[in-house]
Structure formats: structure tokens, C-alpha cells
């Protein structure tokens, strides 16, 4: 394809909190400043800026990209905001990647911000407008419906129990206890705590769900020659993929995310990954609900269809297991400021692959990781594969 190699050279993030004192712009600036400081760069070194932020409805701000531009360091630079719902946080770095891979820019900031607490009294109601206004919204749907319906179908298709799925929430919230920015880390949480939490929409209980949150994350991307001058430990973007399924979500196989499979296959091919289960050392799949982690591991070809809960039960996905999944603590533990949560997963791979994740560090010097997000009306999959070597077939 004649693409240039692109590396992540810096990252920063704010704490993820239920309600932040800081405005969206202030959060974006804090994460961005930390990312620039982490690689001893200044805004003058940045050629372009990519912004990811989810529904305008949360803030009641039209053109949220423009609103956030000063906090993102975008003034006077080529700047673009992308939005694919929950998939945004892993799509924005893909957009940043092709800004640099194409040869257009040598450096690019990728900034993701979300402030969900402004919507009053609860951000949930803002999601009403994702449903079709003519054929669905008159039924007064709740965002929980769509997850509960998909989870029930998934459980039924493969004979999976609520207990099987609750283990994901337990693992991620325990992992998050080691994350300094986490909202819901809990080292002592048990499967019974999840099963006995408030029933919201059977089969979904409160602790199956990630929390509404405020926060921001920024990464710095650089082309190969620049990256090598900035750091001796660049983390390379080896492959990217994204795909969209039909918007008629009730016409789809709800037990299996085909769109995630398509996105993953695109990324694996670009990265030259032939056997994902052997070649991916760390996985950060999107986990807004605990069953989604299982669903996505299967779509990513990292588990057989219906087989992900067994990997969880066997401890394979623990931080110390053979294939650590969400060592960050994920959305269930760290929090879910939508776009920022997806980019948090990319930042986690950056820190993990550099051996800088502190108490969260996955043992064994991992070489390659995969981050994935999901969104729109349950139909978009976004995948980024990163590694300690440039790898892949980018220059073919």
C-alpha cells in the first residue's frame, strides 16, 4: 500500500470520575498536556489533531469538535472530529494513523474526551435518540434494552449463565483497583456481588454495566523517522480495521458480532497476524457491559463462538493468564467516558508494551496487543493492533 510506519510515542489521561469539576475543554487540555509532556514535545511539534468525542446530545453543544478545539491544541492546525458512537475511541487513532501513514503529516495528536454528567438528570435519556425515530422511539426504548436483548440472545444461543458472564465484571473491577484513574476499582468484589446487585433489565444487573463517567485521554502519533528521534521505545501501530453492519439492528444475528470479525480480519491482515490466539499477547476489547467482552473476544477470533466465558472461568484472561484481557480494568472498572474509554484501551497497550504499567503490568514482556471498540446502534467494530516492532506488511 506504500504506507509509512506510524508509532505511538506519548500518552496521557485524566482520572475517570462520575462528575468532573473541569469542563470538557479543560479535561481535553489536561490529557493532552500530559501526553505531550510524556514525550517531551510541545504543541509546535504537532502537525495535525484528530478529535474523538461521542454524542453532541450529552453536552447540548452543537459542533462539539469545534467547541473542544482549544483544549485539544487544534487552533491553527488541520483538525478533524470523528464520531462512530462507542466505537469512536478506537476509530480516532485509526484516523490519526492514516493522517501520518499517508505521508500528509509527521506528527498527530489524537484526543478523546467525554463529559456525560452534564445531561440532566441522567445521561441515559440522551441515548433515546439513537433509536429510529419513526419505527422504534415511540415505544420509549431504553439503552439498556438493546444490551439486555443482545445479552439474552447470546446466553440462549450458547447456553451461557449469568454467573459465567459476571466473572468478567469481577475480573475487570479487580484489575481496575490497580489503575490510578479508575472510578470503580474493587479488589474484593465477588461474583455474588454482581449477581445480587440491582436488577435493571433482566439479564442485566447494575454491576454488569460500566458507569457513566467524565474524562479525557490523548496519545501522540509520529512517523517512523520522527518517532525514533522522540523515544527509544516507540510502540508501533501494526494494523487497523473497521467495519459497519446494518442499521436495522433487529434484522441481525444478535449472538455474534460479524462486524467485529470483519474489522479484526482487516487489522490482522495488515499486521501480518496469521494466528491471533498465539500472536496477540494482550487484549483490550470493548466492555461497556460484561457480556460484551465475551462477545467481542469471539468476534476477534480470540475465542470460539460461545467459548469466551470458559476462557474467563479458566483464568486465561486474568492479568497473569495466557491471554490477559482488559488488564487496565476496562470500562467496567476504570469507567466509561465513551470516546475517552476507547482511547484509554490504546493508551493501556502503549504503557503495557513499554513495560510502564506499574501495578497493572502484564508479566512476560508482551510484544503485541489489540484494542477494540464498538458502537453506533450496536453495529460498528473498530480495531487497532500495536506492537514493540513495526511488524506487519504495511510497506508491501
Amino acid at each position, binding site marked *: 500500500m506504500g504506507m509509512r510506519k506510524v508509532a505511538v510515542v*506519548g500518552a496521557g489521561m485524566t482520572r475517570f470520575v462520575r462528575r468532573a469539576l473541569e469542563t470538557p475543554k479543560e479535561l481535553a487540555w489536561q490529557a493532552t498536556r500530559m501526553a505531550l509532556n510524556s514525550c517531551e514535545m510541545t504543541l509546535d511539534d504537532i502537525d495535525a489533531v484528530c478529535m474523538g468525542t461521542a454524542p453532541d446530545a450529552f453536552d447540548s453543544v452543537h459542533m462539539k469538535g469545534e467547541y473542544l478545539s482549544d483544549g485539544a491544541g487544534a487552533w491553527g492546525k488541520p483538525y478533524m472530529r470523528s464520531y462512530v458512537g462507542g466505537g469512536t475511541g478506537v476509530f480516532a487513532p485509526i484516523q490519526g494513523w492514516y493522517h501520518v501513514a499517508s505521508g500528509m503529516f509527521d506528527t498527530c495528536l489524537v484526543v478523546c474526551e467525554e463529559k456525560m454528567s452534564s445531561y440532566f*438528570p441522567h445521561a441515559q435519556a440522551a441515548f433515546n435518540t439513537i433509536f429510529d425515530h419513526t419505527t422504534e422511539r415511540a415505544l*420509549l426504548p*431504553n439503552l439498556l434494552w438493546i444490551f439486555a*436483548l443482545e445479552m439474552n440472545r447470546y446466553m440462549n444461543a450458547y447456553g451461557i449463565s449469568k454467573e459465567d458472564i459476571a466473572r468478567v465484571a469481577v475480573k475487570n473491577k479487580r484489575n481496575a483497583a490497580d489503575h*490510578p484513574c479508575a472510578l470503580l476499582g474493587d479488589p474484593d468484589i465477588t461474583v455474588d456481588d454482581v449477581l445480587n446487585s440491582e436488577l435493571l*433489565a433482566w439479564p442485566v444487573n447494575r454491576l454488569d454495566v460500566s458507569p457513566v463517567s467524565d*474524562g479525557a485521554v490523548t496519545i501522540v502519533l509520529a512517523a517512523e523517522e520522527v518517532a525514533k528521534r522522540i523515544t527509544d521505545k516507540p510502540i508501533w501501530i501494526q494494523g487497523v480495521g473497521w467495519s459497519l453492519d446494518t442499521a436495522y439492528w433487529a434484522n*441481525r444475528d444478535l449472538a455474534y458480532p460479524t462486524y467485529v470479525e470483519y474489522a479484526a480480519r482487516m487489522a490482522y491482515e495488515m499486521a501480518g497476524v496469521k494466528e491471533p490466539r498465539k500472536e496477540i499477547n494482550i487484549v483490550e476489547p470493548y466492555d461497556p457491559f460484561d457480556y460484551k467482552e465475551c462477545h467481542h473476544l469471539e468476534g476477534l477470533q480470540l475465542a470460539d463462538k460461545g467459548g469466551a466465558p470458559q476462557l474467563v472461568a479458566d483464568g486465561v484472561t486474568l492479568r497473569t493468564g495466557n491471554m490477559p484481557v482488559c488488564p487496565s480494568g476496562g470500562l467496567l472498572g476504570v469507567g466509561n467516558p465513551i470516546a475517552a474509554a476507547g482511547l484509554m484501551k490504546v493508551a493501556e497497550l502503549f504503557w503495557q508494551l513499554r513495560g510502564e*504499567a506499574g501495578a497493572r503490568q502484564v508479566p512476560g514482556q508482551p510484544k503485541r496487543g489489540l484494542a477494540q471498540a464498538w458502537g453506533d446502534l450496536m453495529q460498528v467494530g473498530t480495531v487497532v493492533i500495536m506492537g514493540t516492532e513495526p511488524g506487519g506488511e504495511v510497506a508491501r
Partner: protein
Amino acid sequence: MTSKIKNFPGTPLSESDFTEGKVLSIHDEMRPQFAWDTGIGIGSYLAALKEGYLLGSHCKTCEKTVIPPRTVCEWCFDPMDSYVRLEDTGTINTFSLCYVTWDVQRITEPELPAVIEIDGASPLHGILHKLGEVKPEDIHIGMKVQAVWKPAEEREGAITDILYFKPIKEAGS
């Protein structure tokens, strides 16, 4: 890098910081209003609902029958202009018992949303609706259901012209 940083930015506030006015906040209420054109495909669907039946559309090339009807086939991108009348019966593909309303009010009697695969449409092709005249504990995936319609004079060409879907009594059960 993260392991070296001790103090991350981001200042958490509590609910009482707001309710007790410890921080300043501005409250606003938007009341936008919209009127959506229903278009060709969905317009036909709504007209059929007003008449008391379900309408799908069919692509001969792809042998797909979808609901709600649409003007373009997602598979071949050709027009999908043959409308077909479907049964108002179907099968529960999945369901939930929801104890929270769309605007996060708690309720004690659950709402019963479901995806219902409509008889006559292609496999797995369903619509979102609600269930009724059934005990929550009796609902199961694979259950046969039928639409319960509003009286003809009350129908207005909306998805709510169907009140809900209720179980079909199976012979001998």
C-alpha cells in the same frame, strides 16, 4: 509513564456539591420539536399499520424479505420495490424484563421489550416491540406470538398501532 505519575488531573465532584450549591452550575432546558417525513418505504409501512397489517419488502435477486420495508436492498443496492404483506405473527428472538424507563425512573412492573422475528420475513429478521398478556416468568426465546392491535378507529399509522405481541396458545398445551 503511568507508573511514575502519582497525581492525575480530573477533580471528582459529589452530588451534594451540586445540590448544596458548593459549585456553580447553569441549568437549561431544551424543548426542540421535530416533524419527521416518513418517506416512501416507512410511509408504506405506517399506512399498512393503520390498516392493521404488517408490510415488508422483497428483493428477487437476493431472495430477501425484510421488515420494516425499505426502498434499497442492502445486499445488491438495487431498488427493493416489491412490497409484501406479512403475517402479524412471529417468534420471540430475544426479550428483556426492564425495571427502568427510558429516562431512568425505577418501575416495579417490568416493561417487556422483545425482538420478534416476523412470519414471512427472512430468517432472523425481526422488529423491536413489546410483549403483553403474559407473565414475565413464562416468556421464552422461541415462543410464538401475535400482534394485538388497537381498534381500527384509534389507529393512526404508527408502530404503537400494535399495542404489544401476546403468546399464541399452542394446540394441546
